């Protein structure tokens, strides 16, 4: 598992991109291919971001500690898809028309949220190497909590983008809520060191 686990996760995570490229070169995209590329890379960025956030709860619940080794790869793939998503918007969709792109980022809440989600991922991707983890020490943990904000922004980006907020965007927001609530509950759990004081049984 350890030997084949990482290559397997790598292949699974890059497969949607491979499929997209294949469809592109074999004329299998819709009649609005730019939209296909935008939507596919966007949804996979969000899926992988949520997958990376699911690692810790999965580990806590199942006790499968080795699963942590996949977290960085999932996070980096989320960043990869988000980068392609943003580049598609800037280059293919908007044709580098910055006189439209910049006002969009400021004026359109869904684009502001999307940009926020992306910008917050940049320092996380840059400091994902072993060297940076060592150098930052305890601060690394703190810095990487930005991922929560990034994921929240990403979910709002999706919710605010659609014309009617039912179905997919709501499911992803619900999944993120679940993952965050798990973390809160985990923090609040009674631990051996922090016993809940039992009320003495009243005399019968």
């Amino acid at each position, binding site marked *: 598992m350890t030997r084949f686990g990482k290559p397997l996760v790598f292949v699974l995570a890059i497969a949607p991109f491979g499929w997209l490229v294949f469809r592109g070169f074999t004329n299998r995209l*819709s*009649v*609005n291919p*730019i*939209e296909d590329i935008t939507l596919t890379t966007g949804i996979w960025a969000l899926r992988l971001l949520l997958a990376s956030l699911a690692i810790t709860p999965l580990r806590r619940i199942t006790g499968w500690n080795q699963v942590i080794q996949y977290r960085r790869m999932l996070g980096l793939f989320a960043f990869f898809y988000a980068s392609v998503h943003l580049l598609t918007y800037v280059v*293919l*969709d*908007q*044709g580098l*028309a910055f006189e*439209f792109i910049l*006002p*969009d980022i400021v004026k*359109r*809440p*869904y684009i502001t949220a999307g940009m926020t989600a992306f910008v917050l991922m940049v320092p996380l991707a840059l400091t994902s190497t072993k060297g940076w983890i060592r150098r930052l020490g305890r601060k690394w943990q703190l810095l990487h909590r930005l991922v929560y904000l990034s994921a929240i922004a990403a979910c709002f980006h999706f919710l*605010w*983008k*659609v*014309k*009617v907020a*039912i*179905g997919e965007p709501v499911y992803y927001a619900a999944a993120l809520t679940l993952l965050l609530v798990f973390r809160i509950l985990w923090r609040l759990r009674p631990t051996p060191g922090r016993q809940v004081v039992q009320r003495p049984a009243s005399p019968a």
Partner: protein
Amino acid sequence: MLLKRNPDVRASEITPEPWYLRRREFMQLAGSAFAAAAMPFGQTPLSGFKPKVVTTDEALNTFEQITSYNNFYEFGLGKDDPQRYAGKLKTSPWKVKIDGLCAKPADYLLEDLIKPFQLEERIYRLRCVEAWSMVIPWLGIPLSSILKRAEPTAKATFVEFTTLLRPSEMMGQTEASLNWPYVEGLRMDEAMHPLTIMAVGLYGKTLMNQNGAPIRLVVPWKYGFKSIKSVVRIRFVDKQPRTAWNDANPTEYGFYSNVNPQVDHPRWTQARERRIGELLRRPTLMFNGYGDQVASLYSGMDLKRFY
């Protein structure tokens, strides 16, 4: 007349000679065309129509583009959902009720509704509120012909349209995406405008279900969602009717919804659009390029307020 002033129409295109010479043949075929339209799937060729009554020199979008990329939430939210699921809809027999403030309300079978009129080909730009567009060769009849036959009373100031409600065949209607059935409306003068048509065909054949078969409205100077599909009722009313998208999100979708590059959708710009099949976005034209014909309908109106 307004249509004759259309600079896009060349005189030679109005009635080409070969069509004129074969007119008797077409008259015969026209009668049978709608009887044949009763077939459950695919399209039936239509004939006897006046070609290119309104046209443009822009390239047409292909049949594949027009029939594979649709917003028709009755069949799902995805652009490919209508193509995938609309086949289930039975469009024959099809009745259209015309009622409300008029002297001659009636329930028509589709064939009877269309029969008295000459089908016309209208090549229109279609601009979706989502900032994409196409050029589409519709076949249809002016809505005004249908409306006049019902003899609307002087009190009728608006026209309301309703789409079929049949969740068993329109699976999207089982979801709460919009308040079903889909309803739309036009002001009387918009409805009577010569550019406004009820389309029954596309590329010389009956409509595909995903495009709103068997009969749909086409109002080329308004965002696409105003052009309601699969219509079963046309009603004359004296108040501005409720409309589906305005209901769902009143700040984003107004009653008028004229194509207007100066009034942005709250979430995206309407200044540019992507013509399906083109890479770079192109500027959006006021009233979708039909300003010469329709701007006068709105003179004196603040189009930012009445978006």
